């Protein structure tokens, strides 16, 4: 495909869409599907057919619309109305002349002028809920693949990297490493064979951002990867995606086939000598494979055990070749950066954390779902304005960010801006974007034990501090909860936190103590209260 053909395709599809009197968007992301979205979509399709409205109306599935707690969600294109908890029985009303006037639907209409919608800024999720992820034409109509075209036709790889550098984009997988630096490292390695890997092994319990992006806008990620491939000089990409994400896998597979057919992936992309293929690699249930070197081992068909770094993957990755590994959200940010320019992106957020961040809100919060906000938005705005606060008038106690590597943030830090540095300062991390709210009913010791159990079960077993240390820490936390532990046990728990942090081989072990450390820091009293009084006498009975 040439650039001209791409623009033609876009114009054609936009024309076609404009000719329709209404497009009915049904959210078919995993959340809505599990509460009956497919039935709604089928019913609407049947209704259109039976009323012979085929040429004037159409129904299409889309990615996540964000308000997962009110699924299935449906949006109508002509008036932009959004409806929640839609049932198949609403199909007739949805294709009627004025759906908004239908009394049943009117009740289900969601007010989109609330902070949940207004306070968000969508870059990564711009297409989610807007395009049909199963049709490449929809993506092209929304301006898709124009960034790739621009990169290949008008820019040198060096210029692409410069644009990414100007954007200030930092890796969205958790650590926040500057993306351009990583790209540069891979680009300057000698050798003809290099790889680009998309880390879609989202494993933090409570996080489903990457899943939603892959389900809602798979082409965006593929385009981002292809641009990266062009910038660093790689011809082959892999998406390493969690085996549990069946829908995301299906949509990615379909997207790759479509892109290959349109010659947007494969050889001679935009009639250039640039070629780039993407293959899927399906994870098999190992959290540790989110770690770069373990992920590499897994793609190579081995046990997903990390190895010592350096050498880092940009120098020696897949099969010993230079390898660029970025997270889903990072790649998804690339096309808009190239289209709108790095400076545009850098103007969003709060430097040095630029752009937006997608969060998955869950736990004791009214609006569970997926949100995207500018970096630097305060925790209070996220939890109370966008999230709607704690349900039933409950009292906010803590927010957990960063999953098993993160920490619990107490109410006193609600005004902390959410960016890489600020979160690290208060003992948590940005992580991949899971944000779980706890109220007064949550025991923080139990939360710590929960995460330790997670780390224990996900420890690969290679290095001793993580393998045996997480088991011992889990044992101590369990005994504390049973009121069987002593002060000496609590001291040992803290000692083990230091050991794991300083001596574990990989990030999983090094950060495993974080939930314990942060709860000890902010909720120590809850631990102390569980120590039986008679045990605190020094030198006495244990």
């Amino acid at each position, binding site marked *: 495909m040439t650039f001209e053909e791409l623009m033609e395709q876009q114009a054609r599809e936009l024309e076609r869409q404009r000719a329709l009197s209404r497009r009915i968007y049904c959210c078919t992301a995993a959340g809505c599907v599990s509460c009956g979205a497919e039935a709604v979509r089928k019913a609407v399709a049947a209704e259109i057919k039976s009323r012979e409205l085929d040429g004037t109306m159409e129904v299409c599935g889309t990615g996540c619309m964000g308000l997962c707690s009110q699924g299935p969600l449906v949006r109508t294109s002509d008036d932009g109305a959004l409806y929640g908890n839609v049932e198949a029985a609403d199909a007739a009303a949805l294709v009627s002349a004025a759906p908004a006037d239908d009394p049943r639907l009117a009740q289900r209409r969601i007010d989109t002028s609330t902070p949940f919608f207004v306070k968000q800024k969508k870059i990564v999720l711009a297409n989610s809920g807007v395009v049909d992820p199963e049709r490449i034409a929809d993506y092209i109509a929304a301006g898709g693949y124009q960034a790739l075209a621009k990169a290949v036709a008008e820019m040198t790889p060096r210029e692409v990297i410069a644009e990414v550098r100007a954007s200030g984009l930092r890796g969205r997988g958790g650590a926040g490493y500057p993306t351009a630096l990583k790209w540069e490292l891979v680009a300057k390695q000698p050798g003809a064979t290099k790889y680009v890997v998309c880390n879609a092994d989202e494993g933090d319990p409570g996080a489903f951002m990457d899943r939603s992006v892959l389900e809602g806008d798979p082409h965006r990620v593929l385009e981002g990867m292809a641009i990266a491939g062009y910038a660093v000089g790689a011809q082959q990409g892999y998406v390493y995606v969690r085996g549990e994400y069946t829908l995301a896998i299906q949509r990615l597979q379909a997207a790759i086939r479509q892109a290959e057919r349109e010659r947007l992936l494969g050889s001679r992309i935009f009639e250039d000598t640039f070629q780039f293929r993407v293959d899927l690699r399906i994870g098999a249930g190992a959290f540790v494979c989110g770690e770069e070197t373990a992920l590499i081992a897994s793609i190579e068909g081995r046990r997903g055990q990390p190895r010592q770094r350096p050498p880092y993957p940009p120098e020696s990755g897949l099969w010993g070749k230079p390898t660029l590994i970025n997270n889903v959200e990072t790649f998804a940010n690339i096309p808009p950066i190239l289209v709108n320019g790095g400076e545009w992106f850098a103007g969003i957020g709060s430097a040095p954390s630029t752009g937006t961040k997608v969060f998955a809100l869950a736990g004791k919060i009214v609006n569970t779902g997926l949100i995207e906000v500018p970096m630097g938005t305060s925790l209070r705005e996220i939890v109370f304005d966008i999230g709607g606060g704690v349900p039933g008038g409950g009292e906010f106690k803590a927010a957990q960010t960063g999953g098993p590597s993160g920490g619990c943030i107490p109410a006193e830090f609600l005004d902390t801006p959410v960016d890489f540095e600020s979160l690290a300062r208060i003992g948590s991390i940005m992580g991949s974007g899971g944000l779980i709210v706890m109220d007064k009913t949550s025991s923080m010791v139990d939360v710590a034990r929960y995460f330790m159990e997670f780390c224990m079960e996900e420890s690969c077993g290679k290095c*001793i*501090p993580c393998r*045996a240390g997480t088991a011992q820490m889990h044992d101590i936390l369990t005994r504390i909860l049973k009121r069987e532990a002593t002060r000496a046990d609590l001291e040992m728990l803290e000692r083990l936190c230091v*050991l794991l942090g300083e*001596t574990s*081989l990989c990030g999983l072990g090094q950060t495993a103590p974080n939930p314990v450390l942060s709860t000890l820091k902010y909720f120590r009293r809850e631990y102390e209260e569980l120590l039986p009084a008679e045990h605190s006498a020094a030198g006495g009975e244990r």
Partner: protein
Amino acid sequence: MSVKTLVIDGKAVTGRAGETIFNVAWENGVRIPRLCHVGGLSDVGACRLCLVEIEGQRKLAAACLTPVEEGMVVHTSSERLKEHRRLILELLLAERNHVCAVCVMNGACELQDLAAELGVDHVRLRYRFPKLGVDTSHERFGQDQNRCILCTRCVRVCDEVEGAHTKDVFGRGSGSLIINDMGGPWGESDTCTSCGKCVQVCPTGALFSKGKSVAEMRKDRGFLKYIVTAREKREWIR
């Protein structure tokens, strides 16, 4: 070949480019503790006992995997490192059933020796007492999972030196086990050549020769250097 000058524990030493801190330290009489490293096999950095402090670096570095650099200043036995090593040994001792009194390697075990050397006189952690098996199906050797520290020396020697790859690691986390072939009895393995290299490199009593008494059961890793230098340099040195 370029030479690197560095300081290890206050002592100025030199090493060849690409050589590890561990090797240069040992060549110069600084004995850094280790359980997973064996000269002649690849290194995995699993036991974390050889972690050292390098001035100017925030993180501790595994000496067996870190090449020497010009001007490096390395500390191998600070109080902090010793504390970490003691606790790591305690984690190991508590993880499985290391009952030295009834072990055939009593008195010649690397884990036992290291515990003594580092002053581990008791284990502050709870012993975990997993229920693990002993495989004595092999004609000449036995395998006791109770005494295994998962250093994977046996896996590496079988793969890298003998080439049979009979052994590998099964499962993950603290449930990991060293298996033979498809997890069946060792004696029924059709890939094992009964060469015994795995037994010789095993640091504990997890792999042992059958029919040997406590005093007789001694291991010798000298063969590794002999074979490896013969293979790599065509030199047969003892």
